């Protein structure tokens, strides 16, 4: 079994890697296996975690019995969940052409809830917190900061400010405003370049892991 599992792993790994050369039947086979299995796995996980544990058990809680078999106070059923169930059923109405339009109701519910929920959350954690963090004394508390820190602080403040200038929609990037926007783009470019470079190492370790598997676990070539 152990042996078979290793060879299976090797077969699948090389199948995916073969895509780097070009599309081929081996890759198609591994892709087909992957899609079928992962879709099935998620059906199973969603069914037990969401439908059964959250919905079913929520509406019909397990009865708790004591040792003598008498019912002891258990969890109260949460009838609110039935609203969710009804919305879910409305979704399935799509399958009936005549009343299919009703499936827009749960969609409208989801869109409204998502938009409303994230509006404030994004605002608080993406706008307010970031502004607050940027407002710091440039020379450090009680002027104790080193030159290194001061330059860093100034760069952060200027970069954030000009970055926002770049995102301005209702003004053409011309004149002084345009120069500020250009500085903003420079900062964005440094951000993208630096984040890219910093990520390379973690991406390489993923490959190191697979090569370890291929040559070590599978072929036993690494001492």
């Amino acid at each position, binding site marked *: 079994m152990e042996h078979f599992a290793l060879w299976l792993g090797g077969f699948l790994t090389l199948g995916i890697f073969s895509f780097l050369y070009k599309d081929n039947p081996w890759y198609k086979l591994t892709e087909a296996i992957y899609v079928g299995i992962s879709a099935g796995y998620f059906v*199973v996980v969603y069914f037990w975690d969401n439908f059964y544990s959250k919905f079913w058990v929520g509406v019909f809680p397990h009865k708790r019995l004591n040792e003598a078999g008498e019912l002891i106070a258990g969890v109260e059923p949460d009838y609110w969940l039935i609203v969710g169930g009804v919305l879910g059923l409305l979704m399935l109405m799509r399958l009936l052409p005549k009343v299919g339009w009703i499936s827009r109701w749960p969609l409208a519910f989801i869109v409204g809830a998502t938009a409303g929920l994230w509006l404030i959350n994004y605002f608080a954690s993406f706008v307010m917190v970031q502004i607050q963090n*940027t407002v710091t004394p440039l020379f450090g508390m009680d002027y104790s900061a080193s030159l290194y820190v001061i330059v860093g602080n100034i760069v952060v403040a200027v970069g954030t400010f000009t970055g926002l200038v770049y995102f301005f929609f209702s003004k053409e990037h011309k004149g002084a405003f345009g120069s500020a926007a250009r500085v903003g783009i420079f900062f964005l470019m440094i*951000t993208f370049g630096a984040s890219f470079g910093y990520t390379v190492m973690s991406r390489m370790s993923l490959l190191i892991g697979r090569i370890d598997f291929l040559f070590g676990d599978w072929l036993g070539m690494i001492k």
Partner: protein
Amino acid sequence: MKRQVPLIITFLIGMIMIFSFFIPPLEGLEQTCSLFFDVIAVFAFFLGGGNLMRIHVNKLRRRKKDWGFSIVTLGGFIIMLAAGLLKIGNPGGIAASPTTEGALLQEIFTYVFLPLQSTMYALLAFFVASASYRAFRAKNREATILLIAAFVILLGRTPFGMMLTGWIPESFSVLQVPNMAIWIMNSPNLAGQRAIMIGIGLGVISMSLRLILGIERTYLGDDSA
């Protein structure tokens, strides 16, 4: 009715969600909504899973190109359902969890799913290389800055960064490449991230309001816009 009701639902739910943030008695609403969402998503799964089956069965019936692989996909899907829902191949039987060691579902997960997943993920190592070969070119001023920032960080992550600039005395150690990399990560990078994040927060406000107020309604199948 068909047009108006969804817009009213979106408006009401959206407004309630916004204000629930400030009204303590409504603070549990967020969890309730995400619970509703999970339940709706499970029902929707019938549509998604059904669609997957339909497409592959069609491919098979019409003998379209590569129909053979559809058998594999369908087979994998059905085996997982049998193992996970009917709990076939489950040592603990129908009552036990299918994700315990030794269960068919878990075995397939460990020996088929995991290698596939980590290999797919590992492809990134190759694409990171090919993307940097193509993208980091000094075509204009912006691209040059992108290139320099990436190059300094890359160099700082290898021993060569220190070998090339290790002679710089300690008092100017900021100029040593690895320290320069640290500075870039901490200062200009941070500034850029912040500007992007503030912009995102404002963009979300504006788009959410358009949705809630019913100005943006294409997603509801409204063709009057």
